[in-house]
């Protein structure tokens, strides 16, 4: 095996930047294996989630990340342990990358007690250290992300926050409001627009007068990235972290990507786009397949090795899935647990006034240390 190999990424498009990330990069064998493993795990988990939904074990919403793995994995590769991440409801992959094991993700999806939010949050609301969800309200996570970044600056760490949002969310007013404040105050926030072409059933072009999302931060520098190439994403993310930590304020990355599944599991996802379109992306631009080919060709890894990883991941995820299906839900008394960190009433009103429920504290805060 080679211990490392050079790669060339697609050209970046720049906005308000003299110079962008380098298009040539080096990938180590370790990183190749890591990214492959991460992307594959996310894909596998989502496949499993999709099945659980069809089996009606996952309820409500279930937004799969399949097709977009390179974005999360590429960004994660550029982050330091003290950097924060926040995203929207398409959060399963990120939750895992930030530290939740497959059981923690899948059991959250099935609403069981090993879920990272004990099954109380559900598909859109997962959390772990330095990962603040998971948000069901389109756009809401972006101001929150700027707040996380502000806190990093306030505390004097050199941490950044990555705030991810979709092409649909990119039209939300609150996003523009915080673009402005982040720039005005030089907040170390990396805005990442994951442009997967659609906000639910609405194509980018039907929702936005300007679909060059990397330019929509106005005076904020922006970079367009081939979001199907984990290395391009990594390079841009590294560049963005440097940008922020050198005190230049926020930066905006647009990652061109694609979602294979419908918007949520209840959306067949084929009324507003053709099956051919999906097929075409899968065949020509799939982030995992293309990465796999690249690293094999570069002799960083062998097909056998990857197959072994595949098998291992499959068994881990299958195991987790089984557990996430079989496990119990938290006990009923947790209905009134953790409404407040410091409950002042002791008793929470029940459906009728005569049988109040005791308030319990259970979770351990990740943000009070």
């Amino acid at each position, binding site marked *: 095996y080679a211990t490392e190999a050079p790669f060339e990424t697609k050209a970046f498009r720049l906005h308000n930047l003299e110079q962008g990330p380098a298009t040539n990069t080096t990938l180590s064998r370790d990183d190749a294996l890591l990214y492959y493993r991460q992307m594959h795990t996310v894909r596998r988990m989502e496949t499993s989630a999709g099945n659980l939904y069809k089996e009606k074990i996952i309820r409500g919403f279930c937004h799969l990340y399949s097709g977009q793995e390179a974005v999360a994995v590429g960004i994660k590769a550029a982050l330091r342990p003290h950097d924060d991440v926040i995203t929207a409801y398409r959060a399963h992959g990120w939750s895992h990358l930030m530290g939740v094991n497959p059981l923690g993700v899948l059991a959250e999806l099935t609403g069981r007690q090993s879920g990272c939010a004990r099954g109380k949050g559900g598909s859109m609301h997962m959390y772990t250290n330095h990962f603040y969800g998971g948000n069901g309200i389109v756009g809401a996570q972006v101001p929150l992300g700027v707040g996380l970044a502000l806190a990093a600056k306030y505390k004097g760490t050199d941490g950044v926050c990555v705030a991810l949002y979709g092409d649909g969310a990119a039209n*939300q007013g609150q996003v523009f409001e915080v673009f402005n404040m982040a720039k005005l105050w030089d907040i170390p926030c990396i805005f990442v627009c994951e442009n997967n072409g659609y906000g639910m059933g609405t194509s980018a072009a039907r929702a936005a007068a300007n679909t060059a999302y990397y330019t929509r931060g106005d005076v904020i520098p922006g970079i367009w990235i081939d979001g199907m190439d984990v290395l391009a994403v990594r390079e841009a993310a590294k560049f963005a972290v440097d940008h922020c930590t050198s005190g230049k304020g926020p930066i905006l990355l647009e990652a061109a990507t694609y979602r294979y599944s419908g918007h949520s599991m209840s959306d067949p996802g084929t009324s507003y786009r053709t099956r051919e379109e999906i097929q075409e992306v899968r065949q020509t631009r799939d982030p995992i397949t293309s990465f796999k080919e690249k690293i094999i060709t570069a002799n960083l890894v062998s097909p056998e090795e990857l197959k072994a990883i595949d098998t291992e991941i499959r068994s881990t995820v299958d195991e987790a899935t089984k557990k996430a299906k079989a496990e119990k*839900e938290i006990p009923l008394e*947790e209905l009134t647990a953790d409404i407040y960190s410091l409950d002042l009433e002791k008793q929470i009103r029940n459906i*009728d006034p005569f049988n109040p429920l005791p308030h319990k504290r259970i979770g351990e805060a990740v943000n009070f240390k």
Partner: protein
Amino acid sequence: KQMTVRDALNSALDEEMTRDERVFIIGEEVAQYDGAYKVTRGLWKKYGDKRVIDTPITEMGFTGIAVGAAMAGLRPVCEYMTFNFAMQAIDQIINSAGKTFYMSAGRVNVPIVFRGPNGAAAGVGAQHSQCYGAWYAHCPGLKVISPYNSEDCKGLLKAAIRDPDPVVFLENEILYGVQYPMSDQALSNDFVLPIGKAKIERPGKHITIVAHSRAVETSLQAANELSSKGIEAEVINLRSLRPLDINTITASVAKTNHLITVEQGWPSAGIGAEILARIMESEAFFHLDQPAIRLTGVDTPMPYTKSLEMAALPVPKDVVEMTKKLLKVK
């Protein structure tokens, strides 16, 4: 004839769009996608881009646009994918739509309908399960409707569209797919129900159960069960939360001498609270043999966990037991 709530809403929209050129629909995925919950199915095909408008995900913006169009004399029906998202736009609903007629001393009308699913669905978590009935009912200048079945939905949505004032129309996602009988009258183009009037869904003499939206279903189920035990509950479907038809409630209480309210929303300063307060302030109070009682959603955000979610909302058993308690039967 049976009809789903979804189809009832759809036909109300369709009929009113045919009847009045000024009526148009605006919201996310209402046109080409046929509506996130398919309430607007077929309308874009029938009426085209001008009258069924897909918007970007910008609740504050498109609500303001809809309100402005209403000020100019159009009759927008502004759809929210769910009312949770209308929180982003609630300033435009309250301050621009609800107060302008008064601030202009009656010169600028705002004939608009804000509609979409409200309250808890199933397994959608804390941010997607809130009931906004009490909030909107709090605010003068608005009319607020919380319909239950297909007839309600058709007759009241048509009334809302024809009404010259801003109307908040709170649907329920779980009921969209449920079929209810439609009378011949209800199937006609002219079927309009009066806003501000409650309906006695089931007459009875032992206790009055007042509910709105899906809690009416809960109450009716409970009433059936009670009936088998010889207790005849009178179930009142509020239909409107503002104006609140207190007369129908007080008349019923005068007869039954007992009152329970049932709602899925949170208790504190909720619809049940308003009803109990009005009863206490009215003559009806003296007809009560027992204090009136609220059944509400548990005072907590909605968990995703299935068993907890089920425990968070009133079920027929809660109504049955409270009734027995009030009537002192076993």
